[in-house]
């Protein structure tokens, strides 16, 4: 009996960590627009560019600028199958935070950009005044990108409301929005709010539990645990504090990922990665402004990013494997 028991234990051990000295599939998401190997230009340069534009065009100060809010789906059919239900209380109906930046209005011609879900697309079109005296815009994206489309909106009482239709046959063809005017300024001191839990649904652990319902009657419960973050993400700021080894080495992977990505969010980075996007979209201060922030980081941030990445990589490769880093 004892030998059989030992045999089982050994077999279990073998199967658990067969070859498991390292997680070879470990992947760290570092999007192209956030690489730190480019030298930083002065932060103000980008703002200077804008200032010059604004100085030349003092017209329509109420219309020109960033309009921010949720870009929601506007198709009622087959709504269910495109919605993502991850966990109890975590639902994503595929809305993304959008920033419609109206840059210039000149002789009825409007130019600007829309930034959403990691895409920064220019648009061009016309503005007219409606019978009610509101400003109505019809704007077109160039069409050489899969997710290009046409915007139609009206600005009424300081809110920008309208619709968007894709040119191509994509997953969600129609969207609607109700945006408010916001100005973007990089603020290293802003911290995360407790608005939405970070759930990385791409990484989960499935546990199957057998529960005895009645005598000899079993039911299998499948529970999924998703990679997530702890409360430390609300207190550690990697944009205004020089993080030390001892502060970082005890952090779990989810925390490291969020703390690093919060640096990008402060710079107005628009995420391609869905779990990160959903998490940061829910932050009230977050505005997607750029898809390339490579030259925006401060030296402090670059150092912290390097440190965080080092431990993130180590945590993903070795945290729960037999080998160690």
């Amino acid at each position: 009996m004892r030998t059989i028991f030992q045999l089982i234990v050994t077999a279990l051990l073998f199967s658990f960590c067969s070859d498991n000295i390292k997680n070879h599939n470990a992947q760290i998401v570092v999007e192209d627009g956030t690489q730190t190997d480019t030298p930083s230009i002065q932060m103000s340069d980008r703002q200077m560019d804008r200032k010059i534009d604004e100085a030349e065009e003092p017209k329509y100060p109420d219309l020109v600028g960033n309009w921010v809010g949720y870009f929601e789906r506007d198709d009622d059919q087959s709504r269910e199958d495109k919605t993502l239900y991850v966990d109890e209380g975590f639902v994503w109906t595929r809305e993304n935070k959008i920033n419609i930046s109206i840059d210039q209005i000149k002789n009825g011609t409007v130019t600007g950009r829309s930034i959403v879900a990691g895409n920064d697309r220019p648009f061009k079109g016309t503005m007219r005044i409606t019978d009610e005296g509101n400003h109505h815009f019809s704007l077109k994206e160039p069409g050489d990108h899969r997710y290009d489309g046409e915007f139609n909106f009206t600005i009424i009482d300081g809110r920008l409301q309208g619709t968007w239709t894709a040119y191509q046959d994509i997953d969600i063809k129609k969207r609607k929005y109700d945006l408010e005017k916001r100005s973007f300024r990089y603020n290293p001191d802003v911290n995360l709010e407790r608005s939405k839990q970070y759930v990385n649904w791409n990484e989960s652990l499935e546990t199957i539990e057998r529960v005895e319902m009645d005598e000899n009657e079993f039911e299998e419960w499948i529970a999924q645990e998703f990679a997530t973050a702890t409360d430390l993400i609300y207190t550690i700021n990697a944009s205004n504090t020089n993080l030390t080894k001892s502060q970082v080495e005890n952090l779990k992977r989810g925390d490291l990922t969020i703390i690093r990505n919060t640096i990008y969010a402060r710079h107005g980075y628009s995420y391609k990665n869905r779990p990160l996007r959903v998490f940061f979209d829910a932050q009230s201060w977050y505005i997607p402004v750029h898809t390339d922030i490579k030259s925006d980081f401060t030296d402090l941030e670059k150092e912290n990013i390097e440190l965080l990445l080092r431990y993130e990589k180590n945590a993903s490769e070795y945290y729960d494997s037999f080998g160690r880093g």
Partner: protein
Amino acid sequence: MQRSKSIITKTLYFATLLYFSYLMLLITLQYIPLRLDVAFLNIKYDIIDQKFYQLAFFSHVYTSIFVLLIGIVQFSSSIRIQFPKVHRLMGKCYVFLILVISSPSGLIMAFYANGGMISQFSFVMQAFIWFLFTLLALVYARNKQWTLHRNFMIRSLALTLSAITLRLLKWMIANWLEWPPMDIYRLVAWLGWLVNLGIAEIYIWKSKHLRVV
């Protein structure tokens, strides 16, 4: 029945240890060819530029796998009885590698261990005790005090095997309790060798009693 049982137990003992030695070999192979930017060294970036640390680290990594394998094989009674010369030669290698390379290099690394004072103190103690027990086992063999030689070699092997226990415990805690990484590290830095020494003492105590009976 008794005989077949002991064969199965023995096979299990060797199979388990050889399997984990294989994992340790895979870990060692990560550092061949010699590189300073892989695995464990990625989080030793603040010390790895120092030549003395590199020397300590690589001599520790490259020799420890042999110490482990020799240590496991030395407890085979068939080799010991049938080929006493082989037992003696391998024993000398084991003692030499620990006293001259593995333990001193382990001590140097212990001073810079991750996890601060708690884990550093544990690894320093371990390096000293490993050295001491192995040395005593050698002295008792020279004096032909075989029971004492055996007991201290069991203790020495227990410490040698802490390389495996440490990683196994870390793996279990990370998967079941999901503690933060450095908390796990500080805990297993101690448990890794204390658990093994405890088992070794129980084993020694038990066999002493069996003999008296």
